[in-house]
């Protein structure tokens, strides 16, 4: 029971996150923006992928954006982490001094 007390907020939080209408994105509500991305002169397959997703399925585009952002955050984090490690600094401890 004690253990449950420790983790219940996490469950409530997850449940809330599953109710999209209840959660508003940081930065205010946005109206749907109808833009058509022009793929007629684009040759790169990578750009075409994004343009097609944008033009055809807003939901999937949102999902791809989230996945892509998460992927970038993790991979760039790992890369810059390696760079920081090479500096030879101690990156695992710090003193807590307020003043």
């Amino acid at each position: 029971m004690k253990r449950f007390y420790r983790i219940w907020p996490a469950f409530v939080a997850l449940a809330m996150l599953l109710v999209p209408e209840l959660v508003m994105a940081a930065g205010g509500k946005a109206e749907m923006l109808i833009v058509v991305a022009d793929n007629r002169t684009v040759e790169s397959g990578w750009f075409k992928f994004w343009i097609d997703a944008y033009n055809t399925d807003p939901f999937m585009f949102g999902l791809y954006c989230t996945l892509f952002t998460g992927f970038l955050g993790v991979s760039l984090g790992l890369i810059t982490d390696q760079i920081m490690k090479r500096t030879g600094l101690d990156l695992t401890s710090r003193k807590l001094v307020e003043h």
Partner: protein
Amino acid sequence: MEWLYMYMPIAGIDIFWPGLVLIGFSVGVIGGFFGMGGAWMVTPGLNILGFPMAFAIGTDIAHIAGKSMVSTFRHSKFGNVDYVLGLTMVVGTVVGIECGAQIVMWLEAIGKVGPVVRWVYVGVLALIALMVFSDYYKAHKKKKAGVVDEHGAVGFTWYKTLHKINIPPMMHFKVAGIYCSAWLPISVSFLTGVLAGFLGIGGGLLRMPALIYLVGCPTHVAVGTDLFEVMISGLYGTFTYGVKGRIEVWAVFVMLCGAAIGAQIGTVATKYAKGYGIRVAFGLAVVACMISVILKQYKIDLAATVVILGAVGAICVYICGIMFKGAANELREKKANSKLAAA
């Protein structure tokens, strides 16, 4: 000079990419150091680069989510992130933001939304700045008088009173070193959430000082835990703004390349800064934000942009200074120690 411009596939325009990297970098540094998203700093910069405003907010949020991930991981290694506290606060934040948005809708219905929101924003920022500086003054006086506890001199200790509330469930947040009722962080995050939803901002600006003064986190843990929350709300924001077609994905990538490096520098800089160093610099950033909002209210947009970008530049240089000075000292000491050991 064509190579300095990059094609943005969705908006279909060419953008000066070093500008995007620079914006990402500086906001990365500041966000990692203060524990906030910093969308208010990005928008004027994007505006100057000629970035379509329709995509500005969504692109901001996606880049902030990615950047906060980098900072959160780094802070987590320092032991600055209290995940349990962060998750507990997500509950209040989520409900609070929705309530704040409802208040805005009500104000919209009676037609008073614009000025009310701006002036409340200015009032809140002024309050935060006042609180930070008077707290610093108090802590400084205490230090001079020799009243020092385990982490050094501390100014306001309102949280000590709030910790006495013992409505169950009581929780022990180990990393933050707090034992209090779960309702304290939930209600604090609810209040900051209401304000954030009302003002239409992410809320890092409000949550960071609230974590320090009301919940009682050490400054470093407040920064790390707040970034964890920014990451969660940022990822959700990325999804909703993506669905609404307001993200220029390629710009997110370019900005994140700068932001990832900036986030590392900003985060590691917290190691070399004292809690009050972070708090005072944060107070200055809040003042800059407040001035820019006032200028915007009077439609002096150019001056507002100059104030924001000037503040961003100055704070960024200050943080980089802390980081490089601290790192150089540490490396020098390490070298000296190893020489001593060898001798």
